[in-house]
């Protein structure tokens, strides 16, 4: 296994490059994706190497990005659209939920929209408003879309390629505050043998409490697990990876063993992913649960000013607090 140490951002960049090489129909489009390489440099160098017909700087209009990408998809292209920040995807919402999500269904399966919508999401980088949102529920609630997110460089590298290769329209959420974190990436392993895109993964086995997280919160939960272990409590941490469809096989199996579950995400609690996870786990593991499934999430306020985001976002302490509460129930 020939691995390299890459940041999560560089792993995405490398995955995109690989996708452009593999399939001439793959194109990248978005604001500033060309010479600038995107504000996070995820498309760095790609326009230089693949030309401005494959890596397209678009006018500043998100509905336009997604809407024209639909047309390009009908023409046979595989557009990878970058939305610059989470908070700027909403102008494209109509095209995403009414067109991208429904085209295959409406056409009786005659049309497919093999589009990937890349969105850097989540907080923790001290940004101004609209730059730290977690809109995953808006997409995962929408039938016809699939939604995935990665938590580490290896997954970033593989999952972006899998998403591009998939004929389903996929919202690909990138944990922006983890862009700079490094990890080993196997650049050689064939994509066909990779771990399936829509499968969750146990990233730390444990026996006492099942902790479910995705994207930026996976690392937070792993740190919580390390801290808990020092206190003698073994958390099993599951990285969901696919937010729609959810893969809860591992979660059910785990909760049936542990009897306790904590769900962690940055997005507000009310009608978020955590609610769905709690509802399904409760239904499936009703007789195993020693405590209700607890949620550790952002609060139900707009994303607050950066100087209080640390208190807004779930952190190690809040995860451990919830773990404690599952024992105190």
């Amino acid at each position, binding site marked *: 296994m020939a691995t390299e140490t890459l940041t999560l951002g560089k792993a995405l960049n490398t995955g995109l490059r690989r996708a452009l090489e593999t399939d001439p129909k793959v194109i990248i489009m978005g604001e500033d994706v060309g010479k600038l390489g995107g504000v996070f440099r995820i498309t760095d160098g790609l326009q230089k190497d693949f030309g401005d017909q494959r890596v397209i700087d678009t006018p500043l209009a998100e509905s336009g990005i997604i809407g024209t990408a639909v047309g390009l998809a009908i023409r046979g292209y595989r557009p990878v659209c970058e939305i610059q920040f989470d908070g700027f995807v909403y102008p494209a919402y*109509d095209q995403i939920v009414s067109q991208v999500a429904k*085209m295959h269904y409406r056409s*009786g399966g005659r049309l497919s929209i093999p589009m990937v919508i890349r969105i850097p999401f989540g907080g923790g980088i001290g940004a101004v408003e609209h730059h730290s949102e977690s809109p995953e529920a808006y997409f995962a609630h929408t*039938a016809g879309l699939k939604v995935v997110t990665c938590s580490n460089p290896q997954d970033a590298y593989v999952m972006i390629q899998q998403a591009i290769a998939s004929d389903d329209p996929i919202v690909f959420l990138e944990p922006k505050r983890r862009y700079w974190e490094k990890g080993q990436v196997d650049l050689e392993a064939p994509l066909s043998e990779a771990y399936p895109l829509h499968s969750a993964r146990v990233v730390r086995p444990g026996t006492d409490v099942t902790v479910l997280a995705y994207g930026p919160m996976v690392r937070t939960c792993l740190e919580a697990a390390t801290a808990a272990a020092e206190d003698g409590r073994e958390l099993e941490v599951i990285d969901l990876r696919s937010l729609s469809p959810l893969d809860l096989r591992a979660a059910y199996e785990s909760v049936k063993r542990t009897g306790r579950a904590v769900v962690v995400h940055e997005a507000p609690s009310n009608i978020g992913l955590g609610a769905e996870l709690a509802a399904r786990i409760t239904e499936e593991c009703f007789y195993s649960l020693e405590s209700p499934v607890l949620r550790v999430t952002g609060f139900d306020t707009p994303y607050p000013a950066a100087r209080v985001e640390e208190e807004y976002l779930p952190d190690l302490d809040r995860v451990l607090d919830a773990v404690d509460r599952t024992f105190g129930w």
Partner: protein
Amino acid sequence: MAKGDPGGTTRSRRPAPRSKKGAAGNPELVQLLTPDGERIDSATGPDGTEYRVDFTDEEYRGLYRDLVMVRKLDAEATALQRQGELGLWASLLGQEAAQVGSGRALRSQDMAFPTYREHGVLYCRGIDPIMPLGLFRGVDQGGWDPNEFKFNMYTIVIGAQTLHATGYAMGITMDGKIGTDDGEAAIAYFGDGATSQGDVNEAFVWASVFNAPLVFFCQNNQYAISEPLERQTRVPLYQRAAGFGFPGVRVDGNDVLASYAVTRTALDNSRHGQGPSLIEAYTYRMGAHTTSDDPTRYRIASEVESWQAKDPITRVKAFLEKQQIADAAFFAEVDEQARRESVHLRERVLNMPNPEPVTMFDNVYPNGSPLLDEQRATFNRYMESFEGSAH
């Protein structure tokens, strides 16, 4: 007229009678056939482009046949809705010329992106006219293959399809399919109301910036449901184009010849690499917005009457008669064909099967989804639980 390219053949042509000079016409409204059926030799657009057509008699008769056919089939659909066989119908009544003219101007390689009212264009593309009735009956959401017929699905969300058309046209350029007579072009249909939507204006931006081979075809039928044109603009719509950097032209949308000429020119310009343009087909929605609508609440009878005098079919008939291109037998034969096909349409609609409920779980994702597999299975078990019961 069969699917094909009228005006592209070399058979003997009837030169347009010189009854009116185009130069004398209104540059703000390209017209080649007056409401009285007088042919105008050529007409000049606001940017000086000369528009003319050069049809054989057979082609003229073919256009007439198209117009009568699409009106008759449309009327049948309206009747079917009244009798409860369709949930809704959006009639094209009054807009036949804009649709047949532009629809016939498309070459076989061109791709059209319709709204929900382009039954006439659909007909010209050679699609079975029963297709849209499935959508309005509620048995499916559109039955034809967009790629086979180069005619995309109907789009109900106002304006959304203009961006799809723009992207598609960008793809034509990326595929290198412009610059020759065989080049491809796309056409995006939308209404006057749609011009207010952000998406349509974004499509203008994109088409311009990427010099997309795309014709924006706006049927200005004077209303967006109840709202008259003045709720969307205070200047003629075709003028919108200039500010985005491409030409705009207003054509008499009740004149099938002018609609053809203007669209053909615009598409050919696009396919040769000259980028996008906007056509405003000035027409009138003679009927209700849809069968759910009651236009008496918002418009007066005299307005409708004044437009009746500009009927798109009457003028072609008058022209064919005056020029002796067609005789009574021809008109009777066309009417008879229309009657036959509409009866046939009706029969087929009445026999349209309802979909199996469980098919609602199909085609959500090309690759499927375990969640849906589970829901489908549960649904099947649930439905089976009623079998044999009184339910």
